[in-house]
């Protein structure tokens, strides 16, 4: 991944508009947040392979951290704190925000095909 170049990301968002796409949206502060700091809260959410079609999308912001909004027929997809991006070898738009230690805080990914991890039992 590299630091977001707004114009480049906007171009890919535009290319994927008005198509059936799969979205991975996630935010997390880790499963150990309240273990390392008893005053902290564990908070996280993810949705993987939500199938949506957005009318248009925008990337907005300055100073290295951006917000992305995708306007759906009946709602929105939204992520804040996105800092890095990559268009991977499968043409998927991967966006993420990382903290100073490189830990992922937020991710928004858009793909024309469902996302899959390698995760097959071997026995």
């Amino acid at each position: 991944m590299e630091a977001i170049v707004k114009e480049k990301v906007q171009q890919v968002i535009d290319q994927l508009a008005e198509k059936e796409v799969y979205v991975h949206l996630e935010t997390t502060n880790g499963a150990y947040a309240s273990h390392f700091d008893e005053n902290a809260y564990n908070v996280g959410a993810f949705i993987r392979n939500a199938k949506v079609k957005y009318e248009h999308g925008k990337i907005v912001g300055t100073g290295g951290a951006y917000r992305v909004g995708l306007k759906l027929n009946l709602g929105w997809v939204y992520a804040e704190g996105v800092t890095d991006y990559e268009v991977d070898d499968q043409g998927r738009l991967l966006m993420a925000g990382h903290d100073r230690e490189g830990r992922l805080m937020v991710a928004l990914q858009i793909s024309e095909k469902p996302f899959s991890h390698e995760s097959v039992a071997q026995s």
Partner: protein
Amino acid sequence: MSSQEHVVVIYPHPDDESFGAAGTIASYREKGIPVTYLCGTLGEMGRNMGNPVFANRETLSSFRKQELLKACKALDVDVRMLGYRDKTLEFEQMDQVAGHIQSILEEINPTLVITHYPGYAVHPDHNALGAAVIEAVSNIKDSQRPELWVQAIATNYEKDLGEPHIRHDVKPYWDKKMAAIETHLSQASGMMSLIKEKPDFNENEELEHLRYERFYRWNFTD
């Protein structure tokens, strides 16, 4: 219990074995006792992406799988990947997970199984897999049932549970443990820099946690 000693370690994430039990594992391998690691997931949803970042959400599982294989090579243990998804173990049907684990244990026929202490293992995957392992081992018939050790990591767990029955000082295997931890490049950079900043056991609380591997012996008659 079978006569041929064999240890099976069951944790949900690549790196749980290195942080939690590498010294214990090394002590068994030194005696020539086979050890198998059943790794529940590939840690696909991990937050650490390397520092500096080299993985992303979609490539992380491939990196972690390679790291797992390297760690298991460093520790000289067999590994089997159970194929569950990071963060989702507690939402699986527990009897199915338990049945899956039981079938593998009945094939390996171990003398000792090591897992997390449900309710005292902080991460929901640790708690869920630990509970499934206890169910699995409970369901193995008495004559074949291995000993079961469970590991607590929650803050102040001793208040509830008392002193752990087993407390391994793994200092003799320290280099091996560090080598295993270091193979988990995407996950361990934070911990490794903590260790390098304060390499003195007496000054570094994290090192103390890593130095003593503690377990409770599960009592099946309860």
